């Protein structure tokens, strides 16, 4: 049983909040909920949301988590925080007092990050819980509607889930409306006046095609289908909207995993060090802390990498080497740099800006690639290789692990065929997954879909129509 009472937690929390304020962290109001492991598994399966629409995939997720937990393969996270205002965090009842203290401090780190990092501006934290609840209610209503029902709702949700991450990544940049796009294209087609008009005849300017849909390649697959498939019913469009909006809510978390976990770890360490814990708690804290932030060979542990980078940033601010000083704006302390960075970066820019050769060598970062049946180290972080390693790391962080798929044409060949393009960056698509996912696009679009990609350095067009899947390599 637990070795503490709720009053203990509140007392520690008060002390932690003093430190939070002293360090200058800026948090949403915080709510903690104490739960047991079954509830925790439930929250994990539904991304922490107190209410969420039903779908079998969450049941699958739950069973997987439960199996792993029951067999002791993986433990449960010490905590879970959701980005909302007030922020909501769950504490596991069975954890020791020390773990609870660590967790509470860690939660305030996340809370501060959610409130201040620019990527989260688009998530409207005040409405998080209400929005998810409203989504759940709507989906349940469709399920209960005669004539729609579970199977039809599932058919749409299955397809929508497969495509939910095929959307714009940088939500801080506003998407131009089609009207604005048209204006821009027309303006771009206006050439500057020709001073030599009298001397030579100007070549006829090509007429810009402003009728095609989309005007510029569109990454928001679900929204595009919603807005351009006239045969979708209202509830189907609504389901696509719901799935899209939920994906948008989670994208900032995907995009800042390393920063966010590193930030929370950095501050829980600072806070607990300043609390002057009694000795037995202090020892346990050190053990737990090191479990969380230990490097894991063969993987990237976001807690570890993030923490190292934040510590590096603070050191650069407080004690820069001469060359670092040159590049640094004058008069910035380590603390200034920390808070500035947590506001303006995402994982990709964070790593690009702050991860240098020396730190990479200390961390022993490597680039691996498949050769035959093995994964082989192709580069290590030495003088020649570190750039390559960094590129490989950058390619995989955040939404970098999701291929970019764009809609090129909604009426390809005049037959309402949907033409998609995979923006190939050297990484091929996984063919079986591409086939199935294209099947889902086809289900939503209702007509043949085609995807242009590159497989084994050959241009290939994958199609999915009435007769199923086909792959055709360009000759």
């Amino acid at each position, binding site marked *: 049983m637990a070795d503490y009472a709720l009053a203990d937690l509140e007392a520690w929390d008060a002390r932690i909040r003093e430190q939070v304020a002293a360090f200058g962290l800026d948090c949403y109001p915080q709510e903690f909920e104490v739960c047991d492991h079954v509830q925790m598994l439930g929250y994990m399966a539904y991304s922490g949301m107190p209410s969420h629409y039903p779908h079998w995939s969450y049941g699958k997720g739950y069973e997987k988590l439960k199996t792993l937990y029951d067999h002791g393969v993986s433990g449960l996270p010490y905590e879970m925080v959701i980005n909302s205002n007030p922020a909501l965090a769950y504490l596991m009842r069975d954890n020791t007092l020390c773990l609870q203290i660590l967790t509470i401090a860690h939660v305030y780190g996340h809370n501060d990050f959610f409130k201040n990092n620019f990527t989260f501006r688009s998530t409207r934290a005040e409405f998080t819980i209400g929005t998810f609840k409203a989504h759940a209610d709507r989906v349940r209503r469709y399920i209960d509607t005669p004539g729609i029902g579970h199977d039809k709702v599932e058919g749409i949700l299955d397809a929508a889930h497969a495509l939910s991450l095929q959307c714009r990544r940088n939500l801080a940049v506003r998407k131009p409306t089609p009207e604005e796009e048209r204006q821009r294209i027309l303006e771009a087609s206006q050439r500057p006046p020709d001073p030599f008009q009298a001397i030579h005849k100007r070549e006829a300017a090509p007429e810009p095609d402003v009728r095609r849909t989309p005007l510029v390649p569109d990454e928001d697959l679900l929204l595009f289908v919603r807005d351009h498939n006239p045969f979708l019913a209202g509830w189907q469009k609504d389901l696509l909207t719901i799935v899209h909006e939920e994906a948008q809510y989670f994208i900032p978390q995907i995009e800042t995993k390393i920063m966010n976990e590193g930030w929370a770890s950095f501050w829980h360490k600072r806070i607990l060090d300043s609390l002057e814990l009694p000795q037995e708690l202090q020892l346990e804290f050190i053990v737990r802390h090191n479990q969380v932030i230990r490097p894991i060979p063969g993987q990237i542990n976001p807690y570890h990498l993030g923490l190292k980078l934040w510590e590096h940033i603070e050191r650069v601010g407080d004690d820069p080497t001469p060359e670092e000083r040159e590049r640094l704006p004058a008069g910035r302390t380590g603390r200034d740099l920390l808070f500035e960075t947590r506001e303006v970066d995402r994982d990709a820019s964070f790593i690009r800006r702050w991860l240098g050769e020396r730190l990479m060598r200390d961390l022993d970062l490597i680039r691996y690639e498949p050769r035959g049946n093995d994964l082989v180290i192709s580069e*290590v972080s030495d003088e020649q290789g570190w750039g390559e390693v960094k590129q*490989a790391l950058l390619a995989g962080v955040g939404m970098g692990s999701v291929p970019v798929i764009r809609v090129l044409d909604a009426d390809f060949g005049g037959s309402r065929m949907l033409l998609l393009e995979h923006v190939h960056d050297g990484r091929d698509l996984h063919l079986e997954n591409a086939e199935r996912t294209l099947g889902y696009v086809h289900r939503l679009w209702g007509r043949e879909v085609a995807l242009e990609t590159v497989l084994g350095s050959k241009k290939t067009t994958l199609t999915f129509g009435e007769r199923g899947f086909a792959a055709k390599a360009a000759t």
Partner: protein
Amino acid sequence: MADSIFRPFNPSDAERSDRSAGDRSRHRSKVRESIRENIADIIAEESIIGQNRDRIIKVPIRGIREYRFVYGDNTPGAAQGNGQSQQGQVVGKARGQQGQGEDKAGDQAGADYYETDVTLEELIEIMFEDLELPDLERKALRQVESFRIARRKGYRAVGIRIRLDKKRTARERARRMVATRKHREALGIERPRFPFHEDDLVYRHMVTDTRDESNAVVLCLMDTSGSMDTMKKYLARSFFFLLFQFICTKYQNVEIAFVAHHTEAKEVTEEEFFHKGESGGTFISSAYVKALEIIQARYHPSLWNVYTFHCSDGDNFDSDNPAALRAARELCDLCNLFGYGEIKPLGSRYYESSMLQIFRRLEADNFQTVLIERKEDIWQSFKAFLGKDRGARQPQA
């Protein structure tokens, strides 16, 4: 900064919080669907034959995976080394399947399949869901009341103390109290207590439920002559296994008997049946005669539903064929279903003699022959065997 709110753990919330139950059962039914689609492959897996019913088995299934656009096999990645990384070191196995967004030097085997756990019991249930027993004429005499369960059925004013329903009794008393109030006031009776009366007592009423029992026996006959090798025996065993499990789902009381034969037949235990090799030639008739004896002695057809199945490689002595045919006819009369499975692993079919031709002359509606060449045939043959419906195929000749 405002105070943080702590919500304490609430056990009753926790009990109500099985929020994923609906989604889990939805997922579960998808798994079942997928299992049903792949049932033939699963049967062909040796591991399930002859296992305990409660055992949990891993069943590879397709189709419950969630697909997205992901990067494929040629994707390089970045990871943290062990501190002494060198170019060219092997850090793991390439995966057929790249995980979603995880920079993981793959240490998992190529997981094209998603594996799920089901109990054998459940698997059997799924398998037989859409199979019906063709000839389910239950033998009237043997529908014995086999077990009783007490079931609640309403309330009575009389009963034994232990079945007293306190809540209802208290309610009766309250009712009586309200009903008699005016009367008592009129009479001016002022009593501080209002005790229970015998009329207030309410008892739960129980009835016993009886269920009819139905009996079935599965007679497994197998050729154990020298020509039956391990592979053939395995195929036979798989078939018997399915038959037994299936009969078990349809009858309450199922017995099984094993008859092994070469030139002569004898009744053996399961262990001996499958594991003991014999040698020598084959008189199929000997097994049938033995089966007839067993039926007469212990499983009289008026009391028992008899299912007989015989597995052999068809290598019978020619001189025995007429006798075998005669005995088979008799068996057909006694059994609900009588089957002959000829096991001929691929290739051996052309140079060995076959009983299939001989049995073609047997025109009983409840007789069925199947040919099993490979593991994959077992499920098909089994379905074909049960498809033989005595009711549906009345006289064709």
